[in-house]
């Protein structure tokens, strides 16, 4: 170590003699030279983590601006029209992405952070949707005086969280597989209720669910039937709030407790973590976002029936989270966006060689989405078992001590 300021050779503080670990200097040198990863996402992240705060803010604002500009992508010739969906209205597709991302972010708290395998996440989405439908739809027999959409949203979220609490209270004391089975059963119960309880109207469903409030200056409602852009902006704003909320939780005692539970539940409890309490919180917070996404979906779609809540939806969201990279927010966003975008992009494209006299164009490619997802997930699991964007622990900012700590 001739020149202590050489970046590849981290300086070691003159610590007390007792504290010297013989192996430490060489190990620190090894980890200081992070080799460039083959994953472009990881490289971007490594770069991002090293930037000062003002650059991080510029990147964040640029991402938000880009997200708000997405509806205009299909007027960009060439690449824009290729990315934008054709068979589905692009704004509607973007709105779909926004509530799927909301769902993925919520499930990521449960599966990614706390490590609880929840196979019935769509159950909470259904609770949110049906709460709004029952309170606002003219078809509902539950309330005589119909509520507005906005008034129904908190109730929908509250009921979703409550069902999360009721489900989690007994089951979160169990470990691993038991929880997966119970949540699977929960989603099926909700689906069967929706199918067969007279008050929930099965297939006929609920129509005329009001849209979110607000008027333009000329009296036209902001949230109409034709243009889906306002819904996308509403969904996007909620996604941004969700990101802030979840990352605030992640970088706190709560997030550490979740992670500790995921890594080693018994060790966590012996270190003083109240495991049941924090698992219950993760479950309830996940249900919060599912309820919110459900209310959003009901407000845009205007119609809800039992066919929306098949088992595949739970699996699809879980697949998205795992595919994107469980345990981190960018991964959940990417995964949630992909599971919504891919089928919408494929709609209107046709599978070659499947044409019949009755249907000369062939089968719609979107029909193959589950085969495609299956393939993608298998490939991701083989080549990137941690997901497209692997979770990465942030280096903590150590204020004035940066120099003492070996760079990562």
């Amino acid at each position, binding site marked *: 170590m001739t020149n202590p300021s050489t970046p590849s050779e*981290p300086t*070691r*503080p003159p*610590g*007390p003699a*007792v*504290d*010297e*670990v*013989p*192996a*430490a200097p060489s*190990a*620190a040198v090894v*980890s200081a030279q992070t080799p460039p990863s083959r994953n472009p996402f990881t490289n971007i992240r490594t770069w991002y983590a090293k930037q000062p705060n003002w650059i991080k803010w510029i990147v964040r604002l640029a991402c938000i601006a880009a997200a708000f500009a997405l509806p205009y992508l299909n007027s960009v010739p060439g690449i824009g029209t290729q990315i934008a969906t054709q068979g589905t209205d692009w704004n509607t597709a973007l709105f779909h992405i926004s509530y799927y991302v909301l769902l993925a972010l919520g499930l990521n708290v449960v599966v990614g952070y706390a490590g609880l395998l929840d196979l019935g996440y769509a159950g909470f989405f259904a609770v949110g949707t049906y709460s709004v439908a029952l309170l606002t739809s003219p078809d509902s027999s539950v309330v005589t005086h119909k509520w507005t959409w906005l008034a129904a949203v908190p109730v929908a979220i509250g009921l979703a969280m409550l069902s999360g609490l009721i489900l989690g209270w007994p089951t979160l*004391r*169990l*470990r691993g597989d038991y929880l997966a089975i119970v949540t699977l059963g929960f989603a099926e119960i909700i689906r069967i209720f929706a199918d067969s309880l007279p008050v929930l109207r099965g297939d006929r469903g609920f129509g005329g669910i009001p849209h979110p409030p607000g008027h333009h200056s000329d009296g036209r409602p902001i949230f109409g039937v034709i243009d889906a852009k306002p819904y996308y902006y509403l969904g996007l704003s909620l996604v941004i709030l969700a990101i802030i*909320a979840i990352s*605030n*939780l992640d970088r*706190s*005692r*709560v*997030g*550490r*407790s979740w*992670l*500790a539970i995921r*890594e*080693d539940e*018994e*060790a*966590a*409890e*012996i*270190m*003083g*973590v*109240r*495991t*049941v309490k924090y698992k219950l*919180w993760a479950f309830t*917070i996940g249900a919060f976002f599912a309820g919110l996404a459900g209310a959003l979906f009901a407000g845009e779609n205007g119609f809800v029936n039992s066919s929306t809540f098949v088992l595949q939806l739970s699996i699809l969201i879980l697949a998205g989270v795992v595919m994107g990279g469980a345990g981190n927010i960018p991964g959940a966003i990417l995964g949630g966006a992909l599971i919504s975008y891919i089928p919408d992009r494929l709609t209107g494209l046709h599978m070659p060689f499947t044409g019949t006299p009755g249907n000369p164009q062939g089968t719609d490619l979107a029909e193959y989405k589950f085969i495609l997802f299956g393939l993608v997930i298998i490939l991701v699991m083989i080549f990137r078992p941690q997901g497209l964007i692997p*979770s990465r*622990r942030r*280096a*903590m900012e*150590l204020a004035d*001590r940066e120099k*003492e*700590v*070996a760079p*990562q």
Partner: protein
Amino acid sequence: MSDPNELDELTGVREDAPVPTGGGVSVGFQPTYSQDPNVLLEVDDVTLRFGGVVALDHVAFDIKRGEIFGLIGPNGAGKTTCFNAMTGVYRPTSGEIRFHGRNPGDKATVVTGKRKHEITRLGVARTFQNIRLFPEMTALENVMVGADAHHKTSVLSALFRLPRFWREERSGKDVAYELLKFVGIGPRANTVARNLSYGEQRRLEIARALATNPTLLCLDEPAAGFNPIEKADLLNLIRSIRDTGVTVLLIEHDMRLVMGVCDRLVVLEFGRKIAEGVPAVVRNDPEVTRAYLGEPADAS
């Protein structure tokens, strides 16, 4: 499946089931309270059975404040089981364990039957024989989990970044970093635990346990796999921990290390206590020589 502890291990069903405090008392057990004001932890006539196997057989000893107390014995003698009974992982079939709080003269709390995180908050911390860190978290975060045991930041104050969050986050980080420096791995604070060397991981476990602000620190074979230099460093570390006022309970195989550092020892064999006392006495105890050392005391 008849034994409650066995159920706990297999299914986790008993996990967090409400257990009566002061429990574990079987018919015929009469608590014998120690009169010594200096006692920190009393293991009072503890028996622990797994089905037909008697892992602990009427074991009784006291740990005094400020000492380094050794728990030794051949493999399978019940040392780790005894540890697990103290930290709430197992619940004794009969007998009780009492903990006397942070200050001399504090009223004794019955530990048996309490939940693990409650025992931690009382002031008993431990490390594990086979390292059990949170591998994907950084060293600093691992220690902060321990420090969080005494924090009160709720979900809401974390969500809205209320003053309590900032206060506890800052103090937790400071405490954690000081502890990492204390055990000698300060420069590795931001390294993910999985990437630490074996020795560093052992030290990190000690730092994490110390972060819960214990009165009694239980170390389960902390020197396993260490070379002589590392062992000597560890001895110094254990002594400096004791010098900060923390009582240390040490399970160890290495007789040299035990004899060198412990103030008093208990020797277990097949779940029974066969000797107790200062190292010089224990080392010359014929029972111990027969059961464990296998050769005369000049081996050390």
